[in-house]
């Protein structure tokens, strides 16, 4: 730990509104641990979220927070990172938030490849609104709205991320906290957009994909697994059912958004830009 680091450094005084037993607690602990182990400080971190149970997490950690709109965590997150690359920007959002309402931002921010980490609390359900199907809910699962079972086949978030060209794609599980901490550290350190889809049991609304259900199926990708092979990653990502792999499915280095704009890398961050109105006067010339 850095000087001034202490175990409680990232503790927030906000009261936690999650249900006892919720998988979100493990994620909260994991992210705090990861940040401590990475020697980060609260003021260096920007936590961005949308709306949902997952999206409350930023309030429960001491850090800069932008808790925006349902489905819209990514756009402000990447913009903030572009403006101030010194911030470690982390997005926490639910499966509904990310893959449902926010699906378009998901695929397009993968293309943008801004250097942020994105942790999706995937409980395969809309929890805050009390249990409707999310894009990852199993086919046929019955809910208060899917009274005849979910009619739409579930998305595979890892497949989608790989198909859209993500450079870091991983899956974690709240039941494997140490593994999750490591994934988080890797994701945060990865230059560019890094996704971890985190299997997170919701004890109140998802009675199918419970902690036990996951625990029975989850296994860690073996050491030998090569993370640089896209076809292999796609194949692995298809594995879901009896066995569910967790770990880093794919990791390569790709130029980030800012790498492509020389004046962003050569100059001080936009947040520190020094500018006078008179500096714009030169643009008059072409209008003369």
């Amino acid at each position, binding site marked *: 730990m850095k000087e001034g680091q202490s175990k409680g450094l990232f503790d927030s005084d906000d009261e936690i509104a999650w249900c006892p037993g919720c998988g979100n607690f493990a994620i909260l602990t994991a992210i705090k641990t990861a940040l401590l182990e990475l020697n980060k400080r609260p003021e260096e971190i920007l936590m961005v979220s949308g709306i949902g149970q997952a999206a409350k997490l930023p309030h429960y950690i001491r850090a*800069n927070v932008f808790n*925006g709109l349902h489905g819209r965590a990514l*756009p*402000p997150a990447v913009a903030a990172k*572009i*403006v*101030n690359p010194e911030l470690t920007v982390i997005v926490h959002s639910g499966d509904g938030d990310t893959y449902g309402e926010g699906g378009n931002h998901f695929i397009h921010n993968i293309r943008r490849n801004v250097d942020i980490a994105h942790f999706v609390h995937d409980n395969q359900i809309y929890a805050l609104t009390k249990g409707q199907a999310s894009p990852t809910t199993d086919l046929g699962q019955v809910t208060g709205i899917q009274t005849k079972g979910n009619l739409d086949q579930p998305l595979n978030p890892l497949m989608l991320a790989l198909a859209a060209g993500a450079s870091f794609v991983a899956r974690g599980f709240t039941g494997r906290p140490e593994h999750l901490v490591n994934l988080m550290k890797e994701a945060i350190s990865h230059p560019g957009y890094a996704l971890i889809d985190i299997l997170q049991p919701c004890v109140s609304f998802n009675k199918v994909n419970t902690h036990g259900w996951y625990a029975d199926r989850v296994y860690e990708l073996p050491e030998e697994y090569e993370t640089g092979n896209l076809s292999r990653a796609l194949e692995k990502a298809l594995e879901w059912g009896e066995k569910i792999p967790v770990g880093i499915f794919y990791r390569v280095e790709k130029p980030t958004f800012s790498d492509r704009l020389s004046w962003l890398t050569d100059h001080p961050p936009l947040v520190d*830009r020094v500018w006078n*109105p*008179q500096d714009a006067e030169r643009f008059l010339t072409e209008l003369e």
Partner: protein
Amino acid sequence: MDFNILVGGAAGQGVDTVAKVLELTMKKQGVEVFSHKDYMSRVRGGHNFHMIRFADRPIYSHRESLDVILALDSKTVEIHSSQLSAQGVLVSDESYRQKISTGNALWLPLKEKAVEAGTKLTEGTVAAGAVLHLFDFDFETVWPVLNSLFKSEIFEVNRRALEIGYALTEPQFKLEFPESQPRIMVTGSQAIGLGALAAGLSFYSGYPMTPSTGIMTYLASKMEDAGIVVEQAEDEIAAINMAIGASYAGARAMTATSGGGFCLMVEGLGLAAMTETPLVIAEIQRPGPVTGFPTRTEQADLSFVLTASQGEFPRMVTALRDPEDAFYQTFRAFNLADKYQIPVILLGDQYLGDYYQTIPPFDFSALTIERAIAGEEVWKQPEHYQRYKLTDDGISPRLVPGRCGTQVVIADSDEHTEDGHITEAADVRVAMTQKRMQRLEHLKKEVQEPWVIGQTDPKILLLAWGSTAGPVREAIELLEEDYSIGALIFGDIYPLPTKLLTDLAPNVTMLINVEQNATGQLASLIRQEALIACTHSVLRYDGRPMSGQYIADRVKEVISSDERGTE
């Protein structure tokens, strides 16, 4: 001296280039120019035209009656020849020859001469030469213009074409050159863009949508030079949410769109307000509903933007009246957004966004950026920083994340406590609502009264807003001799400045709202805010901008119908 040339043809025929040659030549000669473009939502074919008006005194609007028509196709002849004045001249290829009802026609071998010049693609340049000679324009000013417009490979052939065209005609109109004043020629889009650059904009995110795209194109062309980011978002929702994120992180940020895109930004508008993140949004109107007329003009989104988004929060809405106003108001919008930590909406429209006008160069010397971001005195305090601190004036000191020592900045879209966390407390809710709304009271003091045009204590008072400013000014000039008439032209429109209005309205016999829409949205707002009802309306909603003459004619109709009505 006040001439009006129409250049018309199908999309893709080079109408734009011909118009540019004429506009720039005139500007270089020191005359005042006003050039308005009428184009269809297609890339080739159809019927597009420019109306280039030039005079020895400032021009505020296009006008319908034409001195010269340069017709690159027969449709232009058919559609426009009736607009030709009695002394007017129509210039067109001989193949389009037909009877015209007024003016004189010059059926020239434009196509043939273009081939002679080197390629039939230069037909427009031949025609431009012919037209320039009608006005006896000086060759020496045309070359640099040609040079700036054509890549070197095609400069020579166009130069030849111009010369050949020039030789086809004789001077027919007498030019008077005003005393040469420094001038820029600029569109509303450019003026907005430059105003934003001057204000220190460093992050722009947007999604293409006519007629707002000009702003983004302008800014994108300055990206590297100004050292800023201009990013095309995947959709308008992303565009506004990105701009908000950038602003939260400390950049001056902006987005622009038209009505359809604004629909998708409505929730983001509320987000800016609720998180108290400064934001400037330009909404460049086109006729709706929905897709409507993508490339035409209307002022029918005022009511929409006034109350867009659920719940209640302060916003400021400023209508841009002309390119000069657009520059200064855009600049000011950034300062106001920062000062009150609110969204500021700039309302423009296709007319304002696209017409070129010669105006005095913008004066940068008096401009000052006021960020209103708190300093050490706030963040060096030992207590945790409270982003939404309740203060006497309703304004919480704003800090920027990562730039305030060990403090953190917590912004939230739920109802929140002073420190930015989610709350459900009734008393906090009331306090936060009042804190937010309190800034509306500040804005009421901040807003600028409308421009007063014509007589200051008139019997007939026109009320207008935004881009009809110029046309109304011209209308007043046309009507002033015969009537006791004046106008108020609103720029700041919400909160509505009501002082002049309530001073003048009681003394008038006719109160006429002049708007480019079907329902009279300014009139509605005035009824709501000032309990004053307009007695008559002049409304246009066919997507074509009102000219000064159009307004004058319609006002006269209103006046005479009213006299008849009261007989």
